[in-house]
């Protein structure tokens, strides 16, 4: 397998942007600058980046409470993302959504979700629309191992399978649902094993290897575009950070986490891979990293300066003007 240098640079850009953005968010939150609460995607960058590198702006994704990485990978702009997390007027959702509710419909990012398991059925609906409109668009539903125990998992996958809808169910198995280890609430070894029960194909990939994720997604997405129906992909990874920033993490040791991260960091894996294969040069990677660090800092600077929403914003957007009523 070999890849174009441009493709690899773009892939690296995605992953580093997520890492730098999330590191900054963690810092800002602990510094007391951010309202609400935030869940970081650090250590899972390869998954969203690998998947979304197969998608266009026309394709859809649904996301989760841990959604910053999905947004960035799908192509969202980090300035309005940052502003949204600050609760500013210039944010993607005018400050009304916050970290758990970022969306950019213009690039098919149908929204993060504060309700675990809230995304499955929405992705199915987007895929249904694509099928009805014959557009060859696909929808990717990101969800966690914990979310796989919601009833919506079953209803959505069955419906998508029965109707052969172009949707990819992408489980990010990071071994933890908040404080609860995966195997204490789930008897099956792999979430992907459940695919048999729906009559759809599945695939288990190393979620810390962006190339493995990319290749698996490519097959599933092509299949979906051709009308072959849904695939369940399980990307195995590990949640490096606490469930949310500020989580005391009483349920595991710091050493255990550190050791895993040092051994198996998706970003380091990428770098050592591309350098070993001679695909990219160290200097190029460093340059990209420096530039992104500046971009993230610039996003923070402008978010800090941006105004909060005006009071009258409280009532806007509850309903839209329906044409039917305007004419009546």
């Amino acid at each position, binding site marked *: 397998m070999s890849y174009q240098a441009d493709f690899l640079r773009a892939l690296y850009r995605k992953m580093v942007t997520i890492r730098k953005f999330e590191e900054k968010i963690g810092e800002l939150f602990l510094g007391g600058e951010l309202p*609400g*609460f935030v869940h970081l995607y650090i250590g899972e960058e390869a998954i969203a980046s690998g998947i979304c590198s197969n998608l266009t702006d026309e394709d859809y994704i649904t996301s989760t409470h841990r959604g910053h990485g999905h947004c960035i990978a799908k192509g969202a702009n980090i300035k309005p993302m940052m502003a949204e997390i600050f609760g500013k007027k210039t944010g993607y959702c005018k400050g009304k959504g916050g970290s758990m*509710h970022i969306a950019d419909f213009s690039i098919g990012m149908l929204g993060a979700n504060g309700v675990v398991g809230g995304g499955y059925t929405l992705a199915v609906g987007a895929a249904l629309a694509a099928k009805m409109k014959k557009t060859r668009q696909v929808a990717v539903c990101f969800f966690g191992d914990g979310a796989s125990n919601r009833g919506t998992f079953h209803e959505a996958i069955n419906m998508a399978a029965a109707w052969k809808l172009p949707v990819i169910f992408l489980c990010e198995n990071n071994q933890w649902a*908040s404080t609860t280890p995966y195997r204490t609430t789930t008897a099956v070894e792999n979430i992907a094993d459940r695919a048999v029960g729906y009559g759809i194909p599945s695939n288990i990939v190393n979620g810390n290897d962006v190339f493995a994720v990319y290749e698996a997604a490519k097959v599933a997405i092509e299949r979906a575009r051709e009308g072959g129906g849904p695939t369940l992909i399980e990307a195995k990874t590990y949640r490096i950070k606490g469930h949310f920033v500020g989580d005391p993490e009483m349920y595991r040791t710091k050493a255990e986490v550190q050791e895993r991260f040092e051994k198996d960091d998706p970003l380091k894996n990428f770098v050592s891979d591309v350098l070993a294969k001679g695909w990219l040069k160290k200097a190029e990677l460093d340059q990209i990293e420096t530039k992104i660090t500046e971009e993230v800092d610039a996003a923070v600077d402008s978010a800090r300066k941006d105004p909060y929403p005006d009071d009258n914003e409280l009532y806007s957007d509850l309903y839209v003007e329906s044409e039917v009523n305007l004419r009546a």
Partner: protein
Amino acid sequence: MREITFSEATLEAMSEEMQRDEKVFVMGEDIARQGGIFGQFKGLPQKFGVERVIDTPISETAIVGAGIGAALAGMRPVVDMHFADFVGVCMDEVLNQMAKICYMFGGQCTMPLVMRAPDGIIRSAAAQHSQSLEAFFLHIPGLKVVIPSNTADAKGLLKAAIREDNPVLYFEHKALFPLKGPVPEGEFCIPIGKANIAKEGKDVTIISYSLMMHRALEAADKLAGQGISAEVIDLRTISPIDKETIFSSVAKTKRLVIVHEAVKTGGVGAEISALVAEEMIDYLDAPIKRLGAPFVPIPFSPSLERLVKINADQIVSAVEEICK
């Protein structure tokens, strides 16, 4: 009297009831390993074992449904919703199963189930983690709904809820958990269906519950400074509503203000207003006033979230308007 936090008060209630009756158990997400997001289950698994303090999968439908089934089979389950907002996930279990089973099957069974649901606004938790949903359940025959405002009530109402043979929804405001207050030593239950006159007065009745009781009492203090004597009623139970206490207070003061954090439209205040209008309108010297959140989801930005919360000054103004 000794002072403990609201979350410690609920913990005492759980502990005493689990000690008293081994049919009582509790299940929910992240309650055993973590002790609950608000520390409200801390130490329970050490005391009673993980067979009776159960960490569940993220499966609200099954958590509540299994609670109902266990209640039918003779247990006295307490189920934790994590956040009240997630009751949306198990709405069928609440409205078509737990509320109706006893009646629909001709009284063959009891339904000693408690559903605990942390609700309300804290720190920009945004639209899906901030709601106050009690009014929904007032509309469903067969449920009882309680909602403590202080530490002592938190304990007494939870104990009563656990001993109750009907399904009880126990809403607990997230901002109340760390609050300290006096709680009597030892065993006590607070009767479900009975409101509490938190402060006696003669010029106006202010009805509230949960976190907003604190604003209502603050407002009553300010009003006292202006020579207006407010009677403040803590509803404690949303369903069944204690009409008697409300009516006798309104008969005395002839003025009524109702305050809740939940959306004003279709809220508990609407029901109380209707009851008073139907049966007491001749007693009233002024229009009824309702204070509740504007008709929008809870926005994230602190600058907007601030606008949906009721403060004491707004209550004072509402009272002034009808006491002129």
